[in-house]
């Protein structure tokens, strides 16, 4: 009988916790005051967006990127207490959305007003159904939209520096235009070229360079899901490398596994150039230098494969 009484006490304790929880939800929403340093505090889910926010905001913003190492996978990141503290103080939050960095939405829930969060996938207008590729930062037009959106939001928070933000955003977009020019030149020079991918990470950039994706869809789907590739699909993908039709293999080193390695080996053996792409910003790069290097790598690979084909 005594056992039951103890259980009853536990039940009461839970009931009290529920009541407390309700209060906590109410008071938690009021945090997120402007920073005392006079800078706009920005929290970005990855350092890619952190870099863009820094490019637009300059000295007027204080950027905290939650994922700033190239070896962490945003799809399955476990946030820390410091991350939550930074989010609770942010005036602007930037998340990729589209299921890429769900941890950000979970973290922000209740402590950062959704109106203060920029969802880049929604902003990009690229999200159209189940096949949506959420790696939107490889889409230069989407990043151009993001720069405008950030300039608008920063201006609303610090009107005195409106011109700085506009000038910075314009400079950033000019850099993007330069890259887009290079990509369309590639598209013109290598019409009809195709690329193989291990994962759809850099797909938007490849598309802008006019490269059609020749990989069997089942291959990249299996790699992304972390399940094994069906044998016929693996065979087709390996055969694709030696067929001589593929201009380059876009490779994601952050998710290397035995099956992507096999495809990489086949590509090397057949003389197909392998171009490495990462999901997060490499150390020491800004968004523009990073995408510049990616574009240069694509150009180099295409020249190389055209040379071998001749």
């Amino acid at each position, binding site marked *: 009988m005594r*056992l039951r009484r103890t259980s009853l006490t536990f039940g009461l304790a*839970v009931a009290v916790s529920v009541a407390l929880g309700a209060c906590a939800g109410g008071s938690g929403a009021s*945090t997120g005051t402007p920073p005392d340093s006079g800078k706009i505090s920005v929290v970005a889910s990855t350092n890619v967006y952190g870099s863009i926010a820094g490019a637009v905001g300059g000295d007027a913003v204080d950027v905290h990127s939650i994922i700033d190492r190239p070896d962490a996978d945003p799809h399955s990141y476990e946030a820390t207490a410091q991350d939550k503290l930074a989010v609770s103080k942010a005036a602007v939050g930037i998340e990729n959305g589209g299921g890429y960095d769900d*941890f950000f939405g979970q973290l922000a829930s209740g402590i950062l007003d959704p109106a203060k969060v920029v969802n880049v996938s929604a902003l990009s207008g690229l999200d159209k159904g189940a096949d949506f590729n959420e790696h939107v930062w490889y889409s230069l037009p989407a990043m151009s939209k993001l720069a405008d959106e950030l300039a608008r939001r920063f201006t609303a928070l610090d009107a005195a520096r409106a011109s700085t933000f506009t000038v910075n955003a314009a400079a950033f977009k000019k850099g993007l235009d330069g890259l887009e020019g290079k990509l369309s030149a590639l598209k013109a020079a290598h019409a009809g070229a195709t690329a193989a991918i291990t994962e759809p990470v850099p797909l938007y950039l490849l598309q802008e360079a006019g490269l059609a994706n020749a990989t069997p869809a089942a291959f990249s789907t299996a790699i992304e899901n972390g399940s094994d590739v069906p044998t016929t699909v693996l065979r087709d993908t390996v055969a694709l490398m030696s067929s001589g039709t593929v201009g380059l293999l876009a490779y994601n080193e952050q998710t290397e596994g035995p099956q992507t390695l096999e495809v990489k080996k086949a590509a090397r053996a057949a003389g197909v150039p392998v171009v490495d792409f990462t999901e997060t910003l490499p150390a020491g790069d800004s968004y523009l230098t990073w995408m510049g290097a990616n574009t240069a790598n694509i150009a180099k690979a295409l020249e190389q494969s055209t040379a071998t084909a001749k």
Partner: protein
Amino acid sequence: MSWTDFTGAVFNFTDYAELLPLFRDSLLAGAILGLVGGLIGTFVMMRDLAFAVHGIAELSFAGAAFALLVGADVILGSLVGSVLAALLLGAMGVRAREKNSVIGVIMPFGLGLGILFLSLYQGRAANKFGLLTGQIVSVDSTQLSALAVTALVVIAGLVLIWRPLTFASADPDIAAARGIPVRTLSMAFMFLLGISVALSIQVVGALLVLALLITPAAAALQVTAAPRMVVLLSVAFAILSTVGGIMLALGGRIPISPYVTTLSFAIYLVCRVAGSWRRRRGWSARAASLRAHA
């Protein structure tokens, strides 16, 4: 990474006053989970179901993949998957000796089904499962309420079947001979286990569920054999691990889960040492007197 870098990343209490109010929901969720985990964990240990907890956690994935395939809600799918898996394990493995092999048979089949559903699904699946596993750091008030309601249901259910379940867990044959519905009780318990595992995973993730449902009860069983003490100690250990782990983690630059798992493992180690010392010296005065009479 030097030693000072390491300690700076692991233990750092500079922003503590600022951090504590932010984590009220996480702390409460940790306490509720500790309570449920400690209570249900004692039965998990008595019924030798540690592997089943792992199986239920894994099989939520198959449910989610099926829901994705048929266009249903993924989170609901994972819940249904867990509860179905738990019931199936309960129905197929009543005898203690069969239990582990039944789980070993069902789990890979279920995981294989999950991969099958994923490959049949047209479209990208990699970005659809992010919300399935929660993180203790980002518990919000909605999740906390859901967790608390589940905790109430599970605790109420346990209280209702406590005495016959204890009997049936300790000695199923004698309980069955006395007319106690052993099979029904087993199914009822597996249902409670299934919903608590599934919901806790969505709030704090699979790792912490394992650390809370198994380790504290296992530690308690090392130091005491008295049923009431096992329950009390296991609840106390579970709450100490979660709440203590979160409190230690605040301010550090690494995630919360390693603190909780390390703390609960440390408690287990201490209990093991204490238990072996007590076993050598005799369990208690009563055990000693029993031995003296024998």
